[in-house]
C-alpha cells in the first residue's frame, strides 16, 4: 500500500505560516534558525505567563517544605493543652501601651468557655503584647537533614512560652501549631507526588517501551493488563490495598507502601503514552531514514526516538502529579493512607472530618487550600509545558 500521496501542493491551509513564524516576531530569524527545538520550546513556554507563575509558586512551595523547620517555631507534633483551637493570629505594630512599634508583635489572648456549649473561644487582649523575635532558638532539628541547629526564623521569646503562643494559622484541637503542621505536611504531600510519579514513569517507560518497540504478543499482554487496571475503579482499589498494608509497618515503610499503591494506576497512563509515541515514531520517515543511514537500534532509540517525546512525557508527568496528590490526600483523609504521627495534608484534613469541628475552627481546612493551590499550579504548569512541547499548538 502506498503511503498517503498528496499531489501537488502540501494540503495545508493557505495562510498557515512556516514553523519558525509560529514563534512570534521580535526574535531575529537567525536566532530562530540555529535554535534547537528545546530552546524554541523554552521560548514558547516563557510566553505562557500563567504556567511560568505556577512554576514559581511551586518552587516556593517546595522551598517552604524543605525549610519547614527553620520557617516555623513550634514542633508540629507538640501538644499545648492551654491553647486549643486558637484562631489564626494577626500581627500588630501597636504595643501594650498603644505606641507604635517597629517590631511586629501579637496581642495577648483571653480564653473564655461558653457556659452552654462548653466551647472555648478566644478574644484578643490588647493590654498584653508580645513582640516577635527573629532567629530565635527553639527545638533543635537538622536543617536540610544535615546541619544540626535550633535556630528558627521567627517566634516569641521562649520565656513567654507558658503564657502565650503565636500561631499565624491557628492551632488544632490539641493545640498544635497549624503553620508548622501545614509546612511539614507539605514535605510528605509534595514528595509523595514526585516519588510516585517517578515510579510510575519508570514502570511506564519500561513496559510501554517494550510494548511499543517490540509489539506482538508482549504488547498484547501488557495492553490487556493496562485495560484491566484502568477499568477497575481506582479509589476502592487503593483503599483496599492500603487497608491491607500490615499495621505493624514503620512510618517509612508505610510511606513507600502508599507510594507504590498510588503508582499502580499511574503507570498505566504513562505506559500508554510512551507506547503510543513509540508506535507513532516507529513509522516516522525520519526513523526509517536513520535506519537507512546505518543507525543501529540503540542509536535510533536514544538519538532519534527518545528525544522526540521526552518533552511530551515531562508535560504528561507534570499533569499526573496532581492526581496522585489528590489521591494521597483522599486516602489519608479517610484514615487509610498515612497515619499520625506522620503529617501530610490529608492527615491534617482528617482532623476536619467532623462538621462541628469545622464550624468551630474553619482554619483546619487550610491544608485543603494548600492542596487546591498545588494541584492548580501543577495543572497550569503541565498545560504550559504541553503547549510548548506541541509544535503545532492550536
Amino acid at each position, binding site marked *: 500500500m502506498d503511503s498517503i500521496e*498528496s499531489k501537488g*501542493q502540501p*494540503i495545508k491551509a*493557505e495562510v498557515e505560516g512556516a514553523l519558525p513564524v509560529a514563534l512570534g516576531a521580535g526574535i531575529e530569524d537567525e536566532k530562530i534558525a540555529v535554535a534547537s527545538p528545546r530552546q524554541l520550546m523554552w521560548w514558547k513556554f516563557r510566553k505562557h505567563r500563567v504556567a511560568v507563575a505556577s512554576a514559581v509558586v511551586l518552587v516556593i512551595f517546595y522551598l517552604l517544605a524543605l525549610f519547614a523547620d527553620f520557617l516555623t517555631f513550634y514542633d508540629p507534633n507538640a501538644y499545648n493543652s492551654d491553647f486549643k483551637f486558637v484562631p489564626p493570629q494577626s500581627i500588630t505594630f501597636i504595643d501594650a501601651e498603644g505606641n507604635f512599634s517597629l517590631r511586629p508583635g501579637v496581642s495577648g489572648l483571653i480564653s473564655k468557655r461558653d457556659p452552654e456549649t462548653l466551647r472555648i473561644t478566644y478574644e484578643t487582649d490588647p493590654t498584653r503584647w508580645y513582640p516577635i523575635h527573629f532567629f530565635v532558638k527553639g527545638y533543635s532539628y537538622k536543617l536540610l537533614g544535615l546541619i544540626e541547629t535550633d535556630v528558627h526564623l521567627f517566634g516569641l521569646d521562649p520565656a513567654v512560652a507558658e503564657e502565650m503562643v503565636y500561631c499565624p494559622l491557628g492551632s488544632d484541637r490539641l493545640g498544635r501549631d497549624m503553620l508548622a503542621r501545614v509546612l511539614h505536611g507539605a514535605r510528605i504531600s509534595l514528595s509523595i507526588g514526585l516519588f510516585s510519579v517517578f515510579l510510575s514513569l519508570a514502570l511506564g517507560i519500561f513496559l510501554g517501551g517494550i510494548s511499543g518497540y517490540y509489539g506482538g504478543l508482549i504488547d498484547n499482554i501488557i495492553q490487556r493488563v493496562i485495560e484491566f487496571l484502568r477499568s477497575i475503579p481506582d479509589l476502592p482499589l487503593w483503599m483496599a490495598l492500603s487497608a491491607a498494608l500490615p499495621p505493624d509497618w514503620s512510618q517509612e515503610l508505610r510511606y513507600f507502601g502508599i507510594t507504590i499503591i498510588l503508582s499502580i494506576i499511574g503507570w498505566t497512563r504513562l505506559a500508554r503514552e510512551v507506547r503510543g509515541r513509540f508506535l507513532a515514531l516507529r513509522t516516522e520517515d525520519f526513523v526509517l531514514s536513520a535506519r537507512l543511514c546505518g543507525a543501529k537500534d540503540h542509536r535510533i532509540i536514544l538519538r532519534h526516538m527518545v528525544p522526540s517525546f521526552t518533552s511530551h512525557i515531562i508535560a504528561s508527568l507534570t499533569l499526573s502529579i496532581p492526581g496522585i496528590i489528590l489521591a494521597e490526600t483522599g486516602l489519608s483523609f479517610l484514615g487509610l493512607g498515612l497515619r499520625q504521627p506522620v503529617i501530610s495534608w490529608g492527615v491534617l484534613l482528617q482532623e476536619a472530618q467532623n462538621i462541628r469541628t469545622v464550624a468551630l475552627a474553619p482554619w483546619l481546612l487550610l491544608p485543603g487550600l494548600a492542596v487546591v493551590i498545588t494541584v492548580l499550579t501543577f495543572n497550569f504548569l503541565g498545560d504550559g509545558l504541553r503547549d510548548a512541547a506541541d509544535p503545532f499548538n492550536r
Partner: protein
Amino acid sequence: MQNVLLEVKDLHVNFFLTEGTVRAVNGVSFEIERGKTLGVVGESGCGKSVTARAILNMVRPPGRILSGEINYYGYSDAPVNLIALDPEGSEIRRIRWGEIAMIFQEPMTSLSPVHTIGNQMTEAICLHLNMPKDEALRYSIELLERVGLPQPGRLLNHYRHELSGGMRQRVMIAMALSCKPKLLIADEPTTAVDVTTQAQVLNLMRDLQQEFGMAILYITHDLGVVAEMADKVVVMYLGEEVEGADVDTIYYNPAHPYTRALLRSIPRHDIRLDRLETIEGNVPDPTNIPKGCAFHPRCHYYVPAQCVHPPYQQIGDGHWVRCTRAHEIGQQSSQTEQVL
C-alpha cells in the same frame, strides 16, 4: 457589464495571527462572466482559496475582510455587494448554495463522517428549494444519477467512508448543483484524487456546465488543468494578481515573469524537454512579503532601480499584468511557442 456575473474589486483580506499579520489577499480584482470559467492559478499561500471564501463571505477569524467589493449581478435588479452583508444573516445564506455553490479540495473531509449522504444532500435542497423531505430525496437520486453514480438510491444511506475518493467528489458536485447555482466555486477539486479520477471529474464538470449554464471559478495550482478548463485565467502570487487574460494569451503570450517562468518550469508529458527552467529561491513567508514588487527576489528581469510596487495595468485586450517591464517581456515568445 451585461455578461458579468460577479465582480471582485480591490479585495483585501488579512489574517491576524499571533506571529504577525498575513496579507492573504492584497487588492485583487477580477470579473466572472456568466456561463464561463475563470481559472485562478497560484502556488500555496497565494491567497486563491481565501478569495473563494471571501466571495461567499465565509472568511473566519483570525481572518477578516478589510475592504473591497464583491458585486453579484445574478439577480435581475441591482447588484448585491456580498461582503457588505451580515456573514451570518439570511441574505448571504440565501445566496450561498442557492446562487453560488462551492466544492472543496478534499472530498473526504468535506462530507460529514457521521451523517448519511442523503441527509447532507437533502438538507440544502429542503432549505433553498422549499421541498418536502421525500421529494428532496427523489430529487437527490436524480442528481446522483446525473453525475454518474451507480445505485443512487442505496448511496443515500451511505456514509462518506464507504465511498471512494472519486465518488465523494461526484457526490459533492451533485450537491453543489442541487439548487442550480449561477456560479460554482471549485477550490482545487481534483488535487486529492488520482489523474484518471481527475479526468472523470473534469469531464463531468464541463458537461454539467454546458447543461446548467453556470459560471465556474476554478481554483488550482495545476497549469494543465487550467489550460483544459478555463476560458480566462488569473495568476496569483503572494496575495496579488500578477497577470490576467484569456487562456490562450496566458499560455502563448504571457507578459509577467512569474507566469512565464512557471510555464517553463513544469515538465510535460506531451513533449520532451531537455531541461526545465527554474524559478530560483523559495516562496517568501506570507508574514514577510518582499517590498516593492513581491516577485522581485526571484525575478530574471529584475532591475534594482525600478523596484517599485507595480500597478496592475492593461497591456492588451483584456490582458492585465502587474509588472513594470511587461511590454518588453510580452514581445518575447513563450515556451509553448518555442517547443511547438
